[in-house]
């Protein structure tokens, strides 16, 4: 997509979001919409490392929850405003990505993936034992009384998430078309050859992990205000890891559009399913869909479209 057209579409999406927010429709739309947009950010973030570089992160929950808990910490200690929360959550999770990347990315991809899974568990244990942010009991967070421009704070959060989603996708789009994106694609295709062709593979991988972690933290930062009650088992829920995998897989992992498609489709389906059938059955379906896609259609919907068009 050419730059000009992309800018237009992005601004258009933000504009739509604002209009929808002002329209004061059924409040459930804003709650559900927030979750779907949050997943757009998470899926896009995951794909920067998973789809572009080929390194699978199973610990999405760690980065997301760290963003949320950083926000709680900042709210409790400094009564910080939302932009600070978002930046803080992003930075802390970004540093986590940097750290775990630097430690484990020299090894085969498999070990990185296992380490990310371990990370989520270790972090959850740490948080459970940290009473300042609520520990195992969890913490209640009080929303600010009125949101900027929209009265209802949740509607405001919805609009914030629209902007964050557009921002995340823009970052992915920029990376993808840059020399960094091409280097990541080379190392995904054949890491040894890429290294021998002058691509600084370790540096690029650590970069991707850091950006990915940053965006996941950004997605998590508004979470405390959204749910008002944060406890470790929900913040560190395995759902985040599964969805972060399934959405790009379903949409297509090679480009920015895939995670968006996957997040919108799967996210909407899940919102519908949670209301109509049990939430557990809904999860089972996500798992089956994930395995189905990875076995039968690993290139996702975008890949199927490409095949049909005969390219």
């Amino acid at each position: 997509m050419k730059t000009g057209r992309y800018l237009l579409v992005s601004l258009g999406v933000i504009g739509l979001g604002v209009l929808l927010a002002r329209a004061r429709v059924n409040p459930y739309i804003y709650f559900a919409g927030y979750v779907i947009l949050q997943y757009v950010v998470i899926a896009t973030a995951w794909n920067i490392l998973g789809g572009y570089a080929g390194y699978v992160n199973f610990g999405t929950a760690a980065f997301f929850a760290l963003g949320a808990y950083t926000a709680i910490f900042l709210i409790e200690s400094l009564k910080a405003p939302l932009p600070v929360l978002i930046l803080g959550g992003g930075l802390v999770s970004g540093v986590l990505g940097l750290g775990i990347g630097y430690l484990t990315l020299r090894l085969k991809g498999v070990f990185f993936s296992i380490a990310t899974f371990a990370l989520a568990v270790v972090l959850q244990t740490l948080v459970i034992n940290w009473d300042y942010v609520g520990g195992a009991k969890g913490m209640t967070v009080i929303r600010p009384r009125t949101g900027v421009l929209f009265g209802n704070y949740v509607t405001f959060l919805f609009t914030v998430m629209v902007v964050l989603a557009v921002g995340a996708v823009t970052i992915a789009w920029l990376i993808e078309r840059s020399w960094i994106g091409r280097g990541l694609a080379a190392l995904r295709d054949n890491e040894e050859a890429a290294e021998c062709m002058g691509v600084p593979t370790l540096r690029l991988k650590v970069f991707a992990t850091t950006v990915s972690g940053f965006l996941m933290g950004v997605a998590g930062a508004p979470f405390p205000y959204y749910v008002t009650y944060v406890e470790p088992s929900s913040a560190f829920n395995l759902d985040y890891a599964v969805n972060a995998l399934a959405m790009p897989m379903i949409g297509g992992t090679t480009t920015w559009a895939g995670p968006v498609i996957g997040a919108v489709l799967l996210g909407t389906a899940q919102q519908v399913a949670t209301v109509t059938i049990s939430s557990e059955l809904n999860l089972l379906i996500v798992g089956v869909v994930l395995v189905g896609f990875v076995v039968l259609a690993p290139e996702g919907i975008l890949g199927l479209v490409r095949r049909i068009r005969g390219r």
Partner: protein
Amino acid sequence: MAGALLEVQGLTKRFGGFTALNGVSLQVKTGERFGLIGPNGSGKTTLINCVSGALPSDGGRILFEGRDITGIPAHQRTRRGIVRSFQIPKPFTSMTVLGNLAIPLEYATQARPGGDVAAEAMEILRHIGLESKAHSKPAGLTQIEMRKLELARAMAAKPKLLISDEAMAGLSSGEVDDILAILFRLNEQGITIIMIEHIMRAVMRFSERIVVLDAGDRIAEGTPDEIVRNPAVEKAYLGE
């Protein structure tokens, strides 16, 4: 040693209990056509992996242009001018042939992105005879075209030293001559070339000097004529 582009001093590499390289030393002069031969398992590819930085060594030093590069990561060695092609071609499967060349052009030589890169890449493809496949993906290439792509990609990295690792294995006689001609042309342009090959007529015709490895040791060095008459070499290949 004066005029030595690459100097390997006492290089050792072990895999668990198995010693693949046992204190191997050699020098390659600037502009030379250098052959590296030896029976299977003698350590040729391991030596190349250590020189290019794909594997860390367990002992010894590697000097390039007089500077110690032993601890330097592979991508930096490529930027300094050591480029290798792979025995089994490792193309970037999701990119076109042109895209494959863009990577070393952008990363190894720090060319400016955009128009320059594409034009340069096409120039290299024309040199090597692959320009008609510029927009194909590697999956659609024949064996010899894949080998040419390997070489083209190596050329795109603007090597001072090109290490060609069995670029001709499994090719027909005519195709071997094809690749040989390309390598001769590159050498005429000033690129030092190390050729690892099993196809003896190619190595003998191409090399100015040859080193022979066997079971991790250097057992002979000399001109092609000297090597052919060396009894130790004959023993290594044919046994007692």
